[in-house]
């Protein structure tokens, strides 16, 4: 349908459609979706998973076959097995009007990598030591001066100011 004669790259999977996929009848050509609408995110596993298992949150409409094709064709990741489950988002919390607030449901996929590959979720927020950069040095000097001005009288021996005498 969409530029099938111009961009014959194979489809990596389906897409999310409001109306649903077009009807298939025997003899129809294979449905090809040229720009997938599926966006997935890798998540850190909550419980300890085997080393070859990677955990994803995928849209509800996506199947394990779709995810396998997606990872193999777009990311060239060899996939051995995919298992999926649907996580119910809580509807128990209530706002100030006592109206229930729904957290959206999502589908979780556990992908096992092929060829004995392992994967651990990396630490994306490591603590970095900051040497004073040229832009912030002035601000940092000012802060240090403020701290020196507000430092307590050393003769009080660590006693706070609001104690009498």
């Amino acid at each position, binding site marked *: 349908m*969409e*530029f099938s004669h*111009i*961009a*014959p*790259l*194979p489809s990596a999977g389906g897409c999310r459609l409001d*109306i649903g996929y*077009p*009807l298939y*009848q025997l003899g129809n050509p294979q449905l090809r979706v*040229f*720009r*997938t609408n599926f*966006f*997935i*995110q*890798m*998540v*850190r596993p909550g419980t300890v998973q085997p080393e070859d298992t*990677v955990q994803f*949150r995928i849209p509800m409409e996506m199947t394990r076959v779709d995810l396998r094709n997606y990872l193999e064709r*777009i*990311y*060239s*990741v060899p996939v051995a097995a995919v298992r999926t489950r649907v996580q119910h988002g809580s509807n128990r919390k209530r706002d100030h009007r006592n109206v229930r607030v729904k957290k959206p449901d999502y589908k979780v996929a556990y992908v096992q990598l092929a060829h004995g590959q392992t*994967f651990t979720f*990396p*630490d*994306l*927020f*490591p*603590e*970095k030591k900051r040497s004073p950069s040229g832009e912030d040095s002035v601000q940092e000097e000012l802060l240090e001066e403020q701290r020196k001005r507000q430092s307590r009288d050393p003769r009080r021996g660590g006693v706070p100011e609001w104690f009498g005498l």
Partner: protein
Amino acid sequence: MFPKRLFSNAGFSFNLVPKNKPSVTSLHQCRVLHTTLSRKGLEEFFDDPKNWGEEKVKSGAAWTCQQLRNKSNEDLHKLWYVLLKERNMLLTLEQEAKRQILPMPSPERLEKVIESMDALDKVVQEREDAIRLLQTGQEKARPGAWRKDIFGRIIWHKFKQWPIPWYLNKRYNRKRFFAMPYVERFDRLRREKQARIQTRKKSLEKKKAKYLQEKFPHLSEAQKSSLV
């Protein structure tokens, strides 16, 4: 090697996929674009390791519709997947930031990517509409018809795809595209309400125009045209 973050202000280059290369005979007429293809697989779900732990990550502006209209279909197809990978990476980062209870560095990148993808989709739909109009003369991709529903309203009924004809379709035949006579008074009431709303709107505009005319007679258009 990690793929460059491809925002519109940064350099733009691609390599054609070495395997399964489509035979494009008119390639010598297009400008061939080159880049390195990252083959690291799962590492593409994460940003450049230099940016891990940073508070801000610089990024260019989003793609605009006009910039995308200048690109060929192959370029748009490739750009869609580049933006898709970027969006997946940013969604992963967002989720991890929520998990670690830390702020996500530069969340505006995600908004820019979503805006670029929507613009791309819009441009592709425009091209499809143009081709369809030229080839078949159909204005809309999905067929439909103006019909009166059971409440007496005139609606655009969009057709669904069925493997059987409409007269054999039990679910479709239960839908009524006509209104019974007792619905007429409610239709009349609805039309009266709409008429009142329109009249109120017009009279408000006239009242405002009159007020301005009284306050600023020298700025009125009738005077300008008379001077000319």
